[in-house]
């Protein structure tokens, strides 16, 4: 307990100067996706994604547990886990990479910055190199991260049976939003 408040005081006091040398983290990242197909609209959200960002190196890692995606309908949740994602075999999806332009940004200055994340995305056990744009807003000691990108099912060996091909989109729209802080939460 004492250690945490000491660290907190230190990081708050030196925030302006050592911001770039700090690691930011969250375990409340919200990752949602939307599949819009002719016959059906499927959406789900995960509210316990983790993200770690080291501003100095630009290293960034995200992880989300597949079984924690929240669906409205029971069948959809079952099909998602059992047939498409095979979450017993592949319990998580990860991104490991870096914020490409981290060093060009003055992180001590509050504001919204356009960033590019490049690295390895692993979904359904398949790893791919990706690069996606995003925004990071520096405000009151927090880093608010947002990103929108598409994931093609075929790229990650996610098989959509012909019988439901009009129910599930070939490309899924993913939305990420997270508030990273220097403390444990």
């Amino acid at each position, binding site marked *: 307990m004492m250690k945490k408040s000491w660290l907190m005081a230190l990081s708050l006091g030196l925030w302006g100067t050592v911001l770039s040398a700090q690691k930011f983290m969250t375990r409340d990242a919200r990752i949602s996706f939307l599949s819009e197909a002719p016959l059906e609209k499927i959406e789900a959200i995960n509210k316990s994604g983790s993200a770690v960002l080291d501003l100095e190196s630009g290293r960034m890692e995200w992880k989300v547990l*597949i079984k924690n995606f929240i669906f409205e309908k029971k069948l959809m949740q079952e099909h998602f886990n059992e047939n498409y994602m095979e979450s017993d075999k592949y319990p998580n999806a990860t991104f490991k990479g870096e914020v490409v332009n981290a060093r060009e940004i003055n992180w001590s200055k509050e504001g919204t910055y356009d960033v590019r994340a490049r690295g390895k995305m692993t979904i359904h056990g398949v790893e791919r190199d990706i690069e996606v744009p995003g925004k990071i807003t520096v405000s009151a000691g927090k880093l608010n991260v947002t990103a929108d990108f598409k994931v093609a099912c075929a790229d990650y060996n996610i098989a959509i049976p012909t019988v439901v091909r009009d129910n599930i989109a070939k490309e899924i729209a993913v939305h990420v939003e997270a508030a990273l802080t220097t403390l444990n939460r």
Partner: protein
Amino acid sequence: MKKRLLLLALLLAAMGAAVGLYFYRQKVPSMATQKADLTLSAAELFAAFETDEAAANARYLGKILMVKGQVREANTLADGTVKVVLNAGRDFGVLCEFDPNTQHPRTTFQPGENITVKGECAGLNFDVLLARCVVVEE
């Protein structure tokens, strides 16, 4: 005769469609109605994942677990989602994300309180995550 058969076929098809629609429309059931597969302490569960994640996944992933532990922290997100972390004696613990399909009698908890939760083990992500949790009264 042909008309009768056609009518019967249509009736069966309609019944099939109705049954299909019924199942399709079903919402995810409340965790309160699910039976737990195993009971263990938060410390035990976390230790299993810390020691050997693959073995712990094989044993616990996707199972409904009844987990007893001491509240380390509890908070409610802006959208009303309740998250409680149970102490495992390590840096991270057992994170219980409450079931969105249940009316929870309690959503605030005191650090140090001993509680029992039931949820589906979703795996390890710094904490061991239990999804769709409900508090179990003992």
